[in-house]
């Protein structure tokens, strides 16, 4: 059964139709990389999956839960299961690294402060930032902030992780450390949907690559096919530009 099922999804901003009939099924433990030119709708698609953008029509199911027609309190529950990592990290600047990670489980009364802090330290160890637990985000490099953001998302123990261009705001020398954490996560069997410009990462880690252009899925398949033998002319043009 599909972990994430998207059927006939459409999304418009005013007169601008950004997503035009998207159909996509993501399976458990699958890593999907979404590529495409800027403005193609790939980030919007990702943001529809946890309803940060409200879709205009169609349905999205995550773990069998209908995201598109959920009431507010249901949606809050569903979102706990869908981790998201943003391009701009969006760490909470008024909280320490540890507090950033412990915050949601404690605020939602899923864990006591002590339980949450213990878990947060373990998560920090996983992203190799244990020694930064008690400092504030602004004192971290971009790459470190993004690793904390991944740990923060993992603190809710999600079934699916969404990554919205997680390395696009980073200096080149920090891209690797974030991608490594994501690779580790993929190996551990996390279901991941990654919007990215890192073609090397997509080629190496993705089970399936999705090429989106002008609001449609133009081409999809295993990375060796999409990168090695693209069939659609638009895919070929795009890959020629970025590779």
């Amino acid at each position: 059964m599909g972990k994430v099922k998207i059927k006939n999804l459409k999304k418009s901003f005013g007169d601008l139709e950004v997503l035009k009939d998207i159909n996509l099924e993501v399976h458990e433990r699958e890593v999907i990389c979404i590529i495409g030119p800027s403005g193609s709708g790939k980030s919007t698609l990702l943001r529809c999956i946890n309803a940060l953008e409200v879709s205009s029509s169609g349905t999205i199911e995550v773990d069998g839960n209908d995201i598109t027609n959920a009431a507010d309190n249901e949606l809050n529950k569903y979102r706990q299961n869908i981790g998201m990592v943003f391009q701009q990290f969006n760490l909470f600047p008024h909280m320490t690294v540890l507090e950033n990670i412990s915050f949601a489980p404690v605020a939602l009364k899923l864990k006591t402060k002590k339980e949450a802090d213990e878990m947060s330290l373990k998560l920090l160890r996983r992203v190799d930032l244990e020694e930064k637990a008690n400092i504030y985000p602004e004192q971290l490099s971009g790459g470190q902030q993004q690793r904390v953001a991944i740990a923060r998302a993992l603190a809710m123990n999600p079934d699916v992780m969404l990554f919205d261009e997680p390395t696009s705001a980073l200096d080149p020398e920090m891209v690797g450390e974030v991608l490594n954490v994501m690779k580790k996560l993929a190996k551990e069997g996390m279901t991941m949907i990654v919007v990215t410009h890192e073609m090397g990462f997509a080629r190496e880690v993705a089970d399936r690559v999705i090429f989106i252009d002008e609001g449609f899925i133009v081409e999809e398949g295993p990375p060796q096919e999409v990168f090695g033998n693209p069939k659609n002319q638009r895919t070929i043009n795009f890959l020629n530009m970025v590779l």
Partner: protein
Amino acid sequence: MSIPELIVQNWSRLLGGLAMTVELTIISLIIAAVLGLTFGLLSVSKKKTLRAIALVYVDIVRGTPLLVQAFFIYFGIPAALGLRLDPNMAGIITLSMNAGGYLAEIFRGGIESVNKGQMEAARSLGLPYSLAMTKVILPQAIRTMTPALINQCIITLKDTSILSIIGIQELTQTGRLIIANNYQAFEMWTIVAVMYFIIIMILTKISKRIERKMSYGKSKN
């Protein structure tokens, strides 16, 4: 009489007036903070009607002079309803409503100054809007708002003097009453002005200290 002699002679009355000024300020600001936060939150709501309610309130407060607001509440409303209103009560209502309007705008500005990604990050973790607002957005908003908040406190303290006109015995009214007896306008207004000045300087100093303490992180390390 010289200024020092005038101070000694009228000390207790002047202090009484100052106490009333401070009391009016504090009570009004507490009520205004509740009003400001409430209407500030309404003004950033997704619902159009709630935003409209906040807008009307803020526009009325900003669009009319404080003195007219005081007259309306002290004379206007009681006349229409056929009741009597204690001047202190009318004064507190006026100042609260007035400062509340300005504070609503300060809260709106503060909330809007917080990066949109903060709300999205909080919501993506499954937090309801209310929790995200109180634990993530407002703490950051209040930090940026601090200078404006302090400014509003000072303005409200000075605005209490306008309420002397409806007979509240705060510092300005006390000064007028004393002058009515001794005709020493220059000396007495000097004393009154200096008293306002000192209390506002103290407030400014305290607030500067708070502002410094609230800058991110550094204080905790």
